């Protein structure tokens, strides 16, 4: 059985003037111990997806339809107590903004101790020792001193490491990490990723890594989902997607990397920008920016099909596959 399966998930924002669709028909599965990445344009809905998995999507957002199953339990139908159980023990989240997790008026030590003591009944002193050991584990120097400091006294990177330490305390089945290393420099980023990887491997923890750093993704995730304007547009093995992107958006994304142009020259940006939720284009949501868009792309929504490398929602790929199939038929 899949550890987690999301199927046909639709998430909307209920605004004064209108309904805005933030996630449209998103489906994917996650096995025990598997590591997947979610990449895509800023505003594509990656964080909304991360929040939705643990049913943390706040008003005006809500899950409109679809199912999210943790083993055989339906998360969308859980009551608050069951959800808290899931969030505390089974699925841990590391957010893009460390201050969403850290309480600014408590020292980091007290926050960690509180986390420990809410799950196990041990003395403050023992909890303190465990907390300090975890801070040490995530390479925070002089953890005894940091223990008594407030979040604002730490640099951005250190705050994120404190959060990773607090996740280690929970021992979850799934970690959803929303841009966990974006605030860290590369040497520490490499160490933290190795740490996350080691935790996942050693304990069979599954990881959903939300990231825009394709270098990081290629190191960590076995499978990758590419999102654009609320849709998953491509899904497949990470290395295949990086070496042979099928969807024009994925191609544009890889092409925009600074490594793809000479220093000092303009980067290859994808023309235009992603529409806001209120201005969703008809047909394929990427068509206004796509160099290959046809009449059909402007009118109809492409289905998800397997291209031989990855699954893609794009008429260009679909037409090409059909053409090959026809040729095959003729030949035989």
């Amino acid at each position, binding site marked *: 059985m899949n550890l987690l399966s999301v199927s046909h998930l639709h998430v909307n924002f209920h605004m004064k003037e209108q309904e805005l669709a933030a996630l449209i028909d998103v489906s994917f599965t996650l096995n025990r111990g598997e590591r997947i990445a979610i990449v895509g344009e800023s505003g594509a809905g990656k964080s909304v997806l991360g929040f939705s998995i643990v049913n943390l999507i706040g008003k005006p957002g809500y899950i409109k339809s679809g199912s999210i199953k943790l083993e055989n339990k339906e998360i969308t139908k859980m009551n608050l107590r069951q959800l808290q159980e899931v969030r505390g023990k089974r699925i841990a989240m590391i957010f893009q903004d460390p201050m969403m997790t850290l309480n600014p008026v408590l020292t980091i030590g007290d926050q960690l101790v509180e986390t420990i003591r809410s799950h196990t009944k041990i003395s403050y002193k023992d909890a303190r020792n465990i907390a300090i050991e975890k801070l040490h584990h995530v390479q925070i120097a002089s953890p005894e001193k940091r223990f008594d400091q407030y979040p604002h006294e730490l640099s951005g990177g250190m705050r994120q490491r404190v959060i990773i330490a607090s996740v280690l305390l929970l021992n979850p089945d799934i970690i959803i990490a929303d841009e966990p290393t974006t605030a860290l420099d590369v040497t520490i980023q490499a160490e933290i990723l190795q740490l996350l990887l080691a935790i996942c491997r050693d304990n069979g923890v599954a990881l959903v890594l939300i990231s825009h750093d394709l270098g990081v993704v290629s190191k960590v995730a076995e499978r990758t989902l590419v999102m654009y304007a609320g849709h998953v547009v491509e899904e497949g093995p990470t290395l295949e997607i990086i070496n042979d992107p099928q969807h024009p958006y994925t191609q544009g*994304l890889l092409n925009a990397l600074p490594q793809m142009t000479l220093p000092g020259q303009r980067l290859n940006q994808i023309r235009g920008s992603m529409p806001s939720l209120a201005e969703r284009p008809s047909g394929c949501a990427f068509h206004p920016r796509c160099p290959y868009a046809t009449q059909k792309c402007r009118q109809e929504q492409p289905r998800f099909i397997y291209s031989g490398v990855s699954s893609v929602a794009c008429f260009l790929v679909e037409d090409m596959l059909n053409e090959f199939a026809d040729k095959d038929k003729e030949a035989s």
Partner: protein
Amino acid sequence: MATPLIQISGLEKAFTSNESWLSQWRFRHGKLTRHKDSIHALNGVNLTINQGETLCVVGETGCGKSTLARAIMGLTTPSAGEIHYLDQRIDQLNNRQRMFFRRRMQMVFQNPYASLNPRMTVYQTLSEPISFHNPQFSQSQVDEKIDELLESVGISASSSDRYPHEFSGGQRQRISLARALSVEPDFIVADEPLSALDVSVQAQVLNLMMDKQEERNLSYLFITHDLAVVEHFATRVAVMYLGRICELAPTGTLFSAPKHPYTQALLSAIPRLDSNTAQPIRLIGEVPTPTEKPIGCVFQARCPYANQRCYEASPAMTLQSDGSSVACHAIEEGRL
């Protein structure tokens, strides 16, 4: 050569931790002594930023990059040292004197969540600085400018009546950049402005920053940990470690011939798309916390080349034949 836009010399910043007066007393060696913890975030930074250049600052988390940026912007008072803007000293200005520089220097913060006022719509966030700095503008000129700015950072002008929490992290970061550009400054300090952006929006924002630079001879102090961006965008690169600059070099030189042992480790750790790159140089030892003013080289605890001299004396920045400057005894002694 033109005068540098910004000149920083001997900059130091120590934070004293805000423990209560009572808890500063410790019982040690049989007597009560007052003990104040402090963190030495900057330990003598010397740096110039030229007009029209992009100076990138890279370095380990907690090494003082944001503190340096905040000191330049006058958001934190240095403990020692001087900062000059052209020929004027700016590190000891009062709020009123600072007003003049507000228009000249702008900052984009590391955390897009904290830097936008949650109770102001995007329109309000942008119209305030625009009308303040252009009192002659009519309402429709202000509106036009706002639309133009938002479009230039890839946010549709129709969303200007929304509040920050209704935008994704990357969208908020672009709104912060639009706000910085709104007053047409000479100098922008950008603290990890791209860290929340995916590569295609990153390309868009970097192109915009390069265009503005060309248009108006803008200078940037750009803090980032993304070395691919540094390689692409920087004129010169300053590598920081524990509150000091350990290497300063033209970008091409830094990437083709990194010299300081820390720079070498840093460059080897870049995650590349092709997965079979050389093993990163693993730094041994922990990232130290700068609770003491460092004696000797700031990198000595983790440096594979450290010798007695490195523990005792602080290496000075020395100019190398290829134009880079490095602070390392091993290099000076020809051991590296």
